[in-house]
């Protein structure tokens, strides 16, 4: 009896395992086609505090390129030292995100830029002010004329240049990408971590080129995740109860660099983040060994620093 049950079970598992799709993660392309001139201009803008009203806040303030493109603060600090309402997502590989912001309110990078620029606690600017300000800057005017062929700097050119820079911020050649391309091998523990990653269902949401960032998911699918306060979740966009506490699944690339974690930035370490995710979204308790292996796997997702950051 048991034997027959076991047999059935095994058969079922075999069927289930057979139903696994192809490798659900794809490596970041090595060739990133961008307009370098624009990207370099965008880089200057990205680092320029004059993009904010009081000349204190640049994009890079909250998207620290030395911190995996994210903010090491729990929430972002912007204009006049005011606190933002959410943890800054990384700017690295943002071009692969299916939507921008935690709640996906921007469909692309161009739309995304409007957010922080206009946010009173971030750059506290608007298109007109930016144009007025930047049209007084001769160096920029010359650059923009050179690239966009117009003597007057327009807001959309500024956005375009920044986006071009952001598009250049990809982190290819992570160990895992190399493994996927068959150029490198994972250690046993790393491999085990990846296996667990798939077996426990992390992969269900964290898949694709950005290992995440292609769907929405509730924070606390399985177990209700208690937040200290109400964050701008998907519900604030769709006004549907079902989207309460739903956020864009974040990318796991360079995850070892982008602490603190989750939208609230409460979780300080990757280990804690893994445990939290397993508990709240998978309903699993992981052993220390499993957490370690998963951490090792996640570490292989750290890619090369974007080349554009090295160029002047």
């Amino acid at each position: 009896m048991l034997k027959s049950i076991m047999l059935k079970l095994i058969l079922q598992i075999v069927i289930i395992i057979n139903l696994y799709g192809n490798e659900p993660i794809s490596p970041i392309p090595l060739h990133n086609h961008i307009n370098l001139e624009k990207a370099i201009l965008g880089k200057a803008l990205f680092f320029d505090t004059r993009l904010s009203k009081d000349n204190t806040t640049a994009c890079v303030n909250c998207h620290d390129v030395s911190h995996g493109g994210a903010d090491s603060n729990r929430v972002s600090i912007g204009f006049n030292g005011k606190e933002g309402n959410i943890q800054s997502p990384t700017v690295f590989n943002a071009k692969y995100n299916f939507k921008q912001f935690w709640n996906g309110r921007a469909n692309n990078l161009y739309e995304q830029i409007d957010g922080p620029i206009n946010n009173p606690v971030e750059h506290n600017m608007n298109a007109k002010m930016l144009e007025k300000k930047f049209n007084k800057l001769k160096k920029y005017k010359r650059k923009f004329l050179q690239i966009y062929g117009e003597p007057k700097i327009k807001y959309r050119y500024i956005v375009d240049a920044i986006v071009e820079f952001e598009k250049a911020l990809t982190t290819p050649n992570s160990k895992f990408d190399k493994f996927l391309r068959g150029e490198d091998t994972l250690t046993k523990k790393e491999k085990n971590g990846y296996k667990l990653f798939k077996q426990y269902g992390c992969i269900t949401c964290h898949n694709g080129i950005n290992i995440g960032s292609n769907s929405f998911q509730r924070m606390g699918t399985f177990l209700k995740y208690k937040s200290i306060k109400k964050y701008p979740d998907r519900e604030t966009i769709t006004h549907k109860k079902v989207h309460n506490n739903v956020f864009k699944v974040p990318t796991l690339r360079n995850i070892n660099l982008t602490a603190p974690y989750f939208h609230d930035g409460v979780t300080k370490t990757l280990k804690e983040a893994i445990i939290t995710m397993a508990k709240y979204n998978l309903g699993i308790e992981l052993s220390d060994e499993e957490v370690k292996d998963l951490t090792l796997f996640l570490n292989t997702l750290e890619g090369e620093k974007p080349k554009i950051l090295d160029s002047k």
Partner: protein
Amino acid sequence: MKIVRSILLVFTIGIISSLALIYFYLIQRDFTKNHREFLILLNNMQRDQSQLNYLILENSIYIYQNQDKIKDKIDELLSECNSLSQSTLLKDTTYKQIDLDFISLKKKVDINLENIENYLMFNAGIKNSLLFLTRHIENSEFLDIKDNHLIIKANHILKHFYNAKKIQDLDYLDKKEFLLKSDSKDKKIQKFIKKFNLHSNFLMNNYPSYLNSVDAILHNNIYDSMIEMNSQFSQLALKDFKALDRFAIILFIIFVLSFSMMIFLLYSYMKKNHTLQITSESLKHSLTYDQLTDLYNRKALEHKLNHISKPTILLINIDGFKNINDIYGNKIGDSLLIKISKLLVLKFSTYNNADIFRLGGDEFGIVFDNIAKENVCDIARNLEIEISKHKFNFNELKLYISVSIVTNNIFPIMENADLTLKLLKQNPTKRVMRYTDELNLKKSVEENMKIVEIIKDAISNDRIIPYFQPIVNLQTLKIEKYEALVRLKLKDGTILSPFKFLEISKKSSHYYEITRIMIEKVIEIAIKYPQYRFSINLSMLDILNEKLISILFRCFNKNLSVVSRIDIELLESEFLEDTDKVQEFIERIHSYGSKILIDDFGSGYSNFSYFSELDIDIVKIDGSIVSEITDNTRKLHILKTIYQFTTEMEMVNIAEYVENREIAIILKDIGVKYAQGYYFSQPLPKPLESDEVTL
């Protein structure tokens, strides 16, 4: 002009229709392009929608999947949707319904995408829990045989969850029995059960939402809507294309019509042009050819003369052609001209340097280029003889004619030839003449011109003056009358006789002036010399000239007291048929108390017939008779006869040209009342104070 306007009109229509065709082509091209793009986009959307459905299906089957594929497909679909919404076709009122359909489709797509988001969200939890449960059962080796029911139950529950997922039916879930239970105190067992129930519970709670989201996706009728929209669009487009087709056909017909109209009009224009050309050619022909004889005309002759270096002309004039016309009629005249022209053509067609012309009327010309003048004279003589011997037959009528021929090779060709012809015509004995400078023809022309100038000058400077020759009464030897004779005084005082200028003056209006001056001046003198009568010369032709007559009578009427002493001497140079007019004039003159004299009687045209019809008072016997009565007894007889006749007719005689005493005595003896001549006095600038003469 009408045809040109029509061509222009049709041409304009043609151009407009061509432009319309081009415009239509552009519109049609845009239209087709828009349609094609719209359809392509719609088809792509259909394709992407079904691919999206497929990906969702794949996602639901597989435990995990690279969801980037879904994301990319959604991006594609949205971008197509966006492109489609910007299609200009949707702004067209014809496609209003499609626009509305599209808006609702767009809504459906958006809802579907939202559903997909939700599905992915729920699916993840469901899948993970199902996986967990599978794995949980797999890791249950630690359970004893006695806890077998737990395994069976767990498998049962799991199977239900799987089936419910596959069948998509909540009824398949055993809502009462989805949890494990055990009384075992074994902590491991309790932990196993707790974990299992946790996920089983999760699944039970989330299945409704999950299945709803799946249902929503599965039952979205986007694809059907797309197909519906596609077919509706195609139907509308078909109508549009049909309309376009009709329009194109109409345009094409207009184009073809205007094109063929244009060809037709061009054809008729060319035809008309051709007729015009023929007309203009015949006009041209008539410009250079004589209509009657088809020889070259005078114009052609002038042209010819201007274009050859050594021309010689043979000017042929038919003698008395006017009489032929008068006697036999113009028809015979014309056919005579044609016969002559044929004769000339026959004779001169062998000369390759000769051209034959009809110069109008009865004149023909032969122009030779570069020919010896001796030959020309021979040719002319031969031709004259030939024509004079030629018998011209007109049915019953047979005519012989003679021609006068002038040859000339000296410039100006025509002028010289014409002058020579005139000279030749005056000489009835000569038929052929060659122009030479020695003929002095030109000089006389020049002289004439000079004389006209002189006359003009004399009139304006009061140098037309009357001279007076006394007329003596032979019986009483007293001057009773004076004949007024016109004289022209040159600047240097030389007096010109009338034969030097009067004939020439008759060809201009000066003759009237001269006549008027003469009449006025004679009247003036007559006033001064009341003891004399005066006579003024007028020709018979003058009397027929109303203008001149009115001048005469105007002067007479002004001086009624004097004019009874003014007589009129009539001179006839040509036979006058209309004597009634002359008699009328005579009667009028008589009413003033004036008398009528007949001049030069006995010579020229003056004859006895006058006396039967005209009331003549005095007859002047011609000088050619009077001057010879001493030597020529015949003339004496004539004179006597005239005297007798006129005396019997109660007319008075004046003998002219009385040049010596002998003649005067004979005349006196015969009984002739008056005499006039050099013997008594030559014409004088004014009458003599004394009327006494001696014989």
